[in-house]
C-alpha cells in the first residue's frame, strides 16, 4: 500500500517544481491527494471488516472523540509549517479543563470558569512561546518539558479526583446535533475553513510559509518572525483550552489524565495530512482530510473488535510511514 502511494506521490510531486505555479495545480498535485485516496481506501476496508461500520450516524458520533484533537491539530499544522512544533497541547487541554472544573467547583458561574480556562490556555501558550521566541530554545524540547510540567500541574491541582456535576446545559456538546451532525464536527469544519482561508489567502499565511521555508530569508524580508511565532503558540494554547472545554462538556467531568497521549494523535493527524515536519509546506486541507482518515481507521478497527494491541501498533506505524512518505515526496520535489 505504502509503496504505491509513494510512487503516486512522487509522480505528482515530480511535476511540481517551485512555488510559482497556478493555484489549481498547487491544489491538485500535493500529498493531500494521497491522504484523500487513503481515506477512500480505508472506508472501503473498514466497511468490509465489520458490517456495523457503514452507518453515517455512528461514524459521526465516534468522530467526536477525535475531533477535539483534530481542532488542535489545525493550529498545530500552522505551528509546524512555521518550522516549530508544540507537543504540549494535550497536557494544556487537561490543565485548562482542570482549571475550569476547579473554578466552577469553587462556586463561580460557568461563563467565568470558561473564561478562566481560556485565559489560562493563553498563558500556557505564552509560556511556551516565551521559551521559544525570547530564550530561543528549540520548541521540540521545550514543549516536552511543558508537556510533563502542565500534566503534572493538572495532577497537583485536581489530584486523582474526577471533578464533575456541571450544569446540564453545559454537558453533552457531542449530543447536540445540527441535522445528523454533532456540534463539535460543525465547529471543526468551520475552524478548518477559517484557518484554511487564513493560511491560504492572508498575508500572515504566506509569512508563515516563508518563516518555515527559511527563517533567515523571512527575517531579511522584514517579517516579524518572533511575533508571528509567539502568536502561533498563543493560538495553540487557546485552541487547547477550547478543546479541553469541549472534552469537559462531552464527559460531564474532568480529571488530570484527560486527553493523555493526545500529542501522538495530534502529530499523527498533521503528519498524515502531508505537512512537512521541517516546516514550510503543508495545508489545512491535508489536516482536514487526515482527521477523517484517522476517524475511519480508529473507528473501523474498534468496531471490528480489533484488539488495542494491534491498534497501538498500527498508529505507531502510520505515523512513521506518513512522515517517511511525505518527506520523500518533498525531498523529490525539491530537486
Amino acid at each position, binding site marked *: 500500500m505504502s509503496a504505491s502511494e509513494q510512487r503516486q506521490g512522487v509522480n505528482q510531486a515530480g511535476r511540481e517544481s517551485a512555488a510559482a505555479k497556478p493555484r489549481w495545480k498547487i491544489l491538485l498535485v500535493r500529498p493531500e491527494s494521497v491522504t484523500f485516496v487513503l481515506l477512500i481506501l480505508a472506508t472501503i476496508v473498514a466497511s468490509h471488516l465489520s458490517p456495523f461500520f457503514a452507518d453515517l450516524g455512528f461514524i459521526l458520533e465516534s468522530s467526536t472523540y477525535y475531533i477535539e484533537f483534530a481542532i488542535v491539530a489545525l493550529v498545530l499544522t500552522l505551528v509546524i509549517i512555521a518550522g516549530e512544533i508544540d507537543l504540549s497541547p494535550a497536557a494544556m487541554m487537561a490543565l485548562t479543563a482542570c482549571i475550569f472544573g476547579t473554578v466552577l467547583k469553587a462556586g463561580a458561574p460557568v461563563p467565568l470558569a470558561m473564561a478562566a480556562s481560556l485565559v489560562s490556555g493563553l498563558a500556557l501558550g505564552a509560556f511556551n512561546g516565551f521559551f521559544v521566541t525570547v530564550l530561543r530554545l528549540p520548541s521540540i524540547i521545550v514543549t516536552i518539558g511543558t508537556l510533563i510540567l502542565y500534566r503534572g500541574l493538572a495532577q497537583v491541582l485536581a489530584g486523582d479526583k*474526577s471533578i464533575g456535576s456541571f450544569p446540564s446545559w453545559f454537558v453533552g456538546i457531542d449530543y447536540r*446535533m445540527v441535522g445528523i451532525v454533532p456540534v463539535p464536527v460543525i465547529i471543526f469544519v468551520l475552524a478548518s475553513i477559517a484557518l484554511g482561508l487564513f493560511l491560504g489567502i492572508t498575508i500572515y499565511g504566506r509569512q508563515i510559509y516563508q518563516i518555515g521555508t527559511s527563517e533567515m530569508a523571512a527575517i531579511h524580508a522584514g517579517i516579524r518572525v518572533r511575533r508571528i511565532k509567539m502568536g502561533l503558540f498563543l493560538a495553540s494554547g487557546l485552541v487547547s483550552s477550547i478543546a479541553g472545554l469541549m472534552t469537559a462538556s462531552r464527559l460531564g467531568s474532568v480529571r488530570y489524565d484527560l486527553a493523555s497521549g493526545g500529542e501522538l494523535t495530534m502529530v499523527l493527524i498533521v503528519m498524515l495530512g502531508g505537512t512537512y515536519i521541517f516546516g514550510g509546506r503543508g495545508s489545512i486541507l491535508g489536516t482536514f482530510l487526515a482527521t477523517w482518515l484517522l476517524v475511519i481507521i*480508529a473507528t473501523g478497527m474498534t468496531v471490528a473488535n480489533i484488539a488495542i494491541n494491534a491498534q497501538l501498533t498500527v498508529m505507531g506505524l502510520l505515523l512513521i510511514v506518513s512522515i517517511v512518505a511525505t518527506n520523500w515526496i518533498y525531498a523529490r520535489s525539491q530537486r
Partner: protein
Amino acid sequence: MLRNKWMLVAALGASLLTGAAYAADPVKIVYIPKNTGNPYFDSIIKGFEDGCKKLGCEFTTVAPATAEATSQIPFLTAQLQRGVDVVAISPNSPDALNQVFDRARSKGTIILSVNSDMPGNEDHRDAAILPVDFTKTGPSQVELLGSQIGYEGDIAILSATTDAPDQNVWIAAMKDTLEKDPKYAKMKLVTIAYGDDDPQKSTTEAEALLANYPNLRGIISPTTVGVAAAAQVVETAKKADKVKVVGLGTPNQMRRFIENGTVDAFQLWSPYNEGLLAAYFAVGVKNGTIKNEAGTVVEVPELGKVTIGDKSVLKTQADLTTFDKKNIGDFNF
C-alpha cells in the same frame, strides 16, 4: 427531540443489520475491563466465559491500553453499534461515562458496573456486581495484621492514590475499627502513604515507611500493586520478621512471598465469581427471569443464592478470603 429520533433510526438500522433481535437469539454480553494486561481482570473474564458456556450467551471482551478516564468510551460506543445486549464494565471513572451509559440504556442495553461501583452516579447504570461486602474489608484487614503482631505496635497503610474511592472507604473503616474496638487499642496507625498504584512510587513509599518509622511493626496495603511492592521492599531490607505485610493481593502476584515466608497471609475475594455472577444476572434480567430490584434472589449453581441489595448492588461473597501457606496452592489467578 431530534436526538431521540436519530437514536431510533440508529437502533432500527442496527437491528436490521443484525437480523432483528428476537428472544431466541443468545444474549450478547461484552465485558470492558479497566485496561488490558491486568491479570486481575483476566480472572473476571474467565468467570464470564465459563458462565456463558453454561448459559449459552455470546461473550466478548475488549479493553483499552490505559486506565485513563476516557479510554473506554470509543470501545463502549463501538460495542453498542455492534448491538450487544449487556455491557459489563469496570469503569475507569465514576462519572465520565455517564452520558454514554444514558444513551445506551435508552436503547435498551443493560449496563453493569463490575468490581467497583460508581458512587453518586448509581442511576446511570442498571446494577453493580461487587466482589465482597466492602464494609468488611477494613476491619478484616486490621484483624489480619493484628493477629500477626500480637495486637500491638506501630502500623502504617500503603494505599493507591489519595483519591481512590474504594481504598478511602476501606481506610476510613480501618481507622474507625482501630479507634473504637478496644481489642486494637495498642495498635497505632502512624501514617498513610500513597503509591499511586505505580510499582516505582509504591516501592519508594514503602522504603520511606521503613526509614521513617524504625519501630514499624506492620503495613496494610489494600491494593494489589502496593502489597506486592511492600512485600518486595520488606524482603529486600530483610525485615520480614520485624515488619509484617498484609493487604489485598492476587495469589499469583503474592505466591512467591507466601512461599518464602516474607508474607504470612493476605486477603482478597474471587474475581472469577464476579464474572460468573454477572453473566447469570445479565442473562436472567435480559430474558426476564430475574427482576432487577432489591430483594430479588439470584441463584448461581456454583455460588448459591445472592440477594440483590439496595441500589441494585450484588455481592458475590460476604467475607474476604484469606490466603496463606496452607491454601495458596489451590488458587491460580
